[in-house]
């Protein structure tokens, strides 16, 4: 069982308190403007399914209830970072450098 750092509570807590919420930085296109079928398909269904560092969303469900973003290595199952909604997507090279 993983330990997850909630960037809002600023605490590292057991995975049981959290729920996984899919890939991160999948922006919903502004549907008030024309959006092509392909663009909408990509938003709905197309995911990276990476082996390695994966940008993904988690929610501190049994805690503050907030959604946040994380980078987790899907091979080692290690979190490289967690960060708040709206914060800039961290560069992978910086993260890998830091984790060394």
């Amino acid at each position, binding site marked *: 069982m993983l*330990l997850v750092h909630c960037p809002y509570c600023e605490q590292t807590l057991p995975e049981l308190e959290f729920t996984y919420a899919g890939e991160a930085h999948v922006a919903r296109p502004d549907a008030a403007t024309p959006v092509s079928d392909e663009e909408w398909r990509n938003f709905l269904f197309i995911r990276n399914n990476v082996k390695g560092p994966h940008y993904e969303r988690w929610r501190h469900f049994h805690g503050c209830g907030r959604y946040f973003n994380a980078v987790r290595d899907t091979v080692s199952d290690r979190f490289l970072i967690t960060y708040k909604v709206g914060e800039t997507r961290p560069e992978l090279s910086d993260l890998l450098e830091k984790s060394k």
Partner: protein
Amino acid sequence: MSNFRVAGRGRIDPQTPVKFTFDGKSISGYKGDTVASALLANGIHLMGRSFKYHRPRGAICAGSEEPNALVGTRRGTGQFEPNTRATVQEIWDGLEVTSQNRYPNLSFDIGAVNDRAYMLFSAGFYYKTFMWPKSFWDKVYEPFIRAAAGLGVSPTENDPDKYASRYLHTDVLVVGAGPAGLASALTAARAGLRVTLVDENAETGGTLTSEPQAVIDGQPALAWAEAATAELKTLGARVMTRTTAIGYYHQNMVGLCQKLTDHLPKPDANTPRERLWRVRATQVVLAQGALEKPLVFDGNDRPGVMLAGSAQTYLHKYGVRVGDSAVILTSHDSAWYAAFDLADAGTKIVAIVDTRSAPAAELLAQAQKRSIRVLSGYTATGTEGRLRIKSVRVNPVVNGKVGTAETLPCDCLLMSGGWTPSLHLFSHTKGALAWNDDMQTFLPDRKTEDCEIAGAGRGLWGIAAALNDGAQMGATVARHLEKEASANEFGVEGDRPGTGVSHKELPTDLNPGKARAFVDYQNDVTAKDLRLAVREGMHSIEHVKRYTTNGMATDQGKMSNINGLNIAADALGKPQPKVGLTTFRPPYTPTSFGAFVGYHRGDHFEVTRKTPIDSWAEENGAIFEPVSLWRRAWYFPKNGEDMDAAVSRECKTTRSAVGMFDASTLGKIEVVGPDAVEFMNRMYTNPWTKLAPGRTRYGLLLGDDGYIRDDGVIGRLSDDRFHVTTTTGGAARVMNMMEDYLQTEWPDLKVWLTSTTEQWATIALNGPNARKLLEPFVEGQDLSDEAFPHMSIVECTVAGFPARLFRVSFTGELGFEVNVPACHGRQLWEILWEAGQKHGICAYGTETMHVLRAEKGYIIVGQDTDGTVTPHDAGISWAIGKNKPDFVGKRGLERPDLVAEGRKQLVGLLTQDGITKLEEGAQLVLDPNQPIPMKMVGHVTSSYHSDAVGRPIAFALLEGGHSRMGETIYIPMPDGVINAEVTGTVFYDPKGARLKL
């Protein structure tokens, strides 16, 4: 005392004799004995029959890695456990032990005919022997195999024992309380850390219990172990024995299974049998030691053939000599010491047979001192003896040539093929292993977790090495935790370090194709099987493993892995590291289901949610049904009515007088804030801007893919406040979805969401008398149709309770839903029930609710929709606000597949005979005479008898359904085809006149 018991030896208590039964026969032992040690003390080696060939087998070792001596134990009614290792189970007065996999008895077993037919049962025999005819598999082969092969039988009674689970946080977890573990724990505890030390054995000491001759810092080994354990406890360390670390998970979470009562004759009724611990340790030290390997040669499995180190353990830990005349067969120095100790205890050592040509001079000198014959540079090529070994055949090997055989009579053969570091837990972490060519074994390499491996677990041999390495590792983890720590240097006398070599199967002068040289004892896999697997094309070790089942038994190849690898590598002509090792997985030893289940059984398996009115329903004879986690009143039978009769009466009463329904399970979400209306506009398909406070609207929720997710009536209480209702099962999902969009897509909106499902009790009153019943109790609102029309909401008081009152209907009748704080729910229900008597009231349940709504064509999301249904498919596209710039699902609805022709659409169905009720889930076809498999064009989603319509009614999802009105479709059923007419979905009061009463 039997003549195999050595007075004054061992950790048993000779003052406390214990009697237990083995296959009904009374056996004596002492407190502290295991089943195996007590049987061996009585001269009994035969303890079981093997899995496939039913070969007689005895205990091969003294620990939890035992593959052969598996027994059934019975502690009482429902307390039968199969496949218990006799080498682990401690004895107590009255324990019942039975042998397994034999008929009619252990000494004479009919299944042993398999052993004669061994040529048939080689690797992959399932795939080859039983291929055809195909029909034979179910009727002949499988029953035969199932009856013939196997280990213990599953218990059939419910398990009455309790199982517990707990969490533990600790600075340092040390796994294994041998010399390395004790030294690690002591060093860390002395540095001021919270230490937890666990060991699967009944007491600490590990290998020291087998080597009492050693002297550590001037103290006898066992006294040192006791003192170290006592000091640990004084320092506040938690020392847990009979506790196995079963799995090592991410971020230093280690699962422990603690056995609390299996060793007790009369356990306290409140003590759980086992307790599962989830330990989160900042640092872990793995000090699991090493496991001895057998040697692989013909007949290496007869009762009496045993690991030399285990014979040494039986002698020193239990005071048991495993035989009167022993042959030692070894490729490692350690077995020589077992020979010396046994000789000193009175066992005749017939010979020490070493596969190495030049054993150490110091060993030879000690053997000579005891007049023990030494045969070096020898191989073993066979054994004799049906239920117990009688002799072993040995041959000299000169320049790779096997010479003339000699037969050595014996009653036990003690072998050692060297030692394998126990790296199971380390492997659970995906830690990398590196092959060490000198030691011919894998050692821990790159780590993925915050752990250290100490002692024999990383190939260090001898007590001094283990102690000093343990202390070093204890100091290392302490420094990781920023504590000052220094590692003691231990002084050890009487240490017995040594070396050895590793073998594939031993060379023989006989036909190796006929050798019964076992590698995996529990799954009956021989060296020949492994070579056959390679010849037949299994070139990956993972394939070899699965084809032969080597290492796949409950012992997970603790003894067989390296021998199997050596043989497979030889057959493949590759070095071992190029062949690789199979993966170890949790649990380390077989673990009961009870331990994993813990408290989550029976009523505690899952919560049952009950409404505030549930108790009334129960007192009034309701039959319940589960709806998601809720328990809901299904119907209220009166005077012995069956369900159809009760539902028919409830429907009729509601349509003609008034019915009362507990709708408290409806999901409720309070949407509040200056941007509440904008949020509602974006979430739901409907337009909300013009909905006036005091009015309600049917709300439809889609996913961004355009499919229906949920629905419910939504009331606007004020400009900035909505009372949203959802389906019973969808409440949490809708809440999550709203939070997701609010937090991540529209964080700019000032809106707050609160789940209020359980804050309100909801009572629905439906029927022409509903107003007459409710009116006298309502203060602050005129209930007339003009003042409070259909689809209104108001905050008022009902019977003196603060209430949110809806005028709404899910039945098609004049309807109200009264929401009061949950604590008043039952009281209000009883007041209305009392007052309703003169209006002909009935209580109705979910089944009547389903019928009434179906008659009116109201859908249930999740029953009439399945996650691929659009509003248009369901015939409710009127609920879409066409002029809104965006809402969840708006763009999705324009996807090409969602506007294509021929989608499945919701329609009504009326069976043409007017009598037959369709089955929900039944498939629809257009042509009932087409050949099977027929093309299915839809299915029935809802189906009921309807008194109001006078015939059965149904809904179905049907391809192109909206354009098939009036057509006949067909429902093929096992007893014939049913014809039905496609209709609209509203069967009753299509103009809605009854709503406006």
